[in-house]
């Protein structure tokens, strides 16, 4: 079963994908399906080559499909159900089972930026409305395969959280004539206390009101609405920033820090009027990378509990200005 059901109360779509109960769960390294297939492989893996740089493939246990089955349930009364149309891709960052995105180096990160931009265009051409690269890193974030990898979901409609952000940006644009994120960047630059890293083209900062203690946002310093709009110089710059930020996370507590990361940008389709905007998506979209690590200290996690999960009201234990200072202190040296 794989179908999308609408929750009338929250206004969110929920995908029911029962076959995912059977997906591979933390196999030993010699049975890793994301390693290259070599002469020494115990089994043929997903990747039938002995080596690779970055590889992207359709998830064997997708929750959404280009040609989805019809819903199994009959929606009665005011309930709505639809086929789970979409695409779920796996992005394997390296043939090395034992590295992480922080360890692949600037050159591979640069290739990853190209891959994200290319998948955006490929999936947009296939008619999906929102393309979101993301990574769940670490067992505490629910990772079921340890090999370094991310994912890309191509949604049939803009999901609720980015849609809410776009709606807020539309209200701001309508009332001020300016981009909300551009204004936020200007405020953070003027204040300086929450900045983590500034390059020629990008900023990394701890948000003024984050959801997680060491949350970091990364955005271009100009109004760039999506990944494909970045030219080579800006892609180089973003890769260079990530090559410093990711190791800083790992230095923070002295271990490879789990996180959830997502790349948000302009929708690939759909009507901006769903966000209350009569103009175009680029006017209210600003490229944004979000990093949300769950740790609030070396040994303690920030859990989503009553206030957060039921009230939508986040409570955090570290001052954002203090978190930014700690992250700045852990940054590796930048290029000369």
């Amino acid at each position, binding site marked *: 079963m794989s179908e999308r059901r609408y929750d009338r109360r929250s206004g969110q779509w929920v995908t029911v994908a029962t076959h995912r109960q059977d997906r591979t769960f933390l196999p030993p390294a010699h049975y890793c399906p994301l390693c290259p297939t070599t002469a020494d492989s115990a089994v*043929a893996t*997903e*990747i*039938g*080559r002995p080596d*690779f*740089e*970055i*590889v*992207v*493939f*359709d998830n*064997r246990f997708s929750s959404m499909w280009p040609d989805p089955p019809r819903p199994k349930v009959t929606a009665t009364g005011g309930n709505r159900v639809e086929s789970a149309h979409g695409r779920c891709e796996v992005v394997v960052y390296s043939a090395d089972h034992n590295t992480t995105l922080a360890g692949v180096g600037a*050159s591979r990160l*640069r*290739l990853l930026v*190209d*891959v994200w*931009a*290319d998948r*955006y*265009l*490929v999936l947009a051409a296939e008619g999906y409305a929102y393309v979101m690269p993301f990574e769940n890193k670490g067992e505490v974030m629910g990772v079921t395969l340890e090999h370094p990898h991310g994912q890309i979901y191509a949604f049939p409609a803009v999901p609720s959280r980015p849609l809410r952000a776009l709606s807020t940006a539309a209200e701001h644009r309508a009332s001020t*004539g*300016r*981009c909300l994120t*551009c*204004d936020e*960047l*200007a405020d953070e*630059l*003027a204040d*300086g206390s929450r*900045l983590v890293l*500034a390059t*020629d083209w990008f900023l990394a900062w701890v948000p003024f009101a984050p959801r997680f203690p060491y949350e970091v946002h990364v955005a271009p*310093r*100009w*109004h*760039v*609405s999506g990944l*494909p*709009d*970045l*030219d*080579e110089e*800006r*892609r180089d710059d973003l890769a260079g920033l990530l090559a410093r930020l990711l190791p800083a996370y790992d230095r923070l507590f002295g271990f490879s820090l789990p996180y959830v990361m997502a790349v948000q940008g302009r929708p690939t389709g759909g009507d901006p009027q769903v966000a209350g905007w009569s103009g175009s998506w*680029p006017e209210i979209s600003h490229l944004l990378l979000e990093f949300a690590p769950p740790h609030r200290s070396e040994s303690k996690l920030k859990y989503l509990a009553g206030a957060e999960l039921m009230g939508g009201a986040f409570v955090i234990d570290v001052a954002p200005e203090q978190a930014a200072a700690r992250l*700045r202190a852990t940054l590796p040296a930048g290029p000369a």
Partner: protein
Amino acid sequence: MSTGAAQPEQPSASPFEESRAAIPTDPLQPAELLPAEPALPAGTMREVEATADGRRITFYRREPVE
């Protein structure tokens, strides 16, 4: 002439002062969109194949820049 007395400490410059000064445009100005670049810049290669069970698989690699 120095009195030998300790001089009051100058407030240290924000580590981002230089960065702020380097902003070439005011981010509050409505910036025009950057022109779309080719998705795959020169030197980045893509090969599309199929997995053993027919799923799409795409290999990417990047040639070293000269």
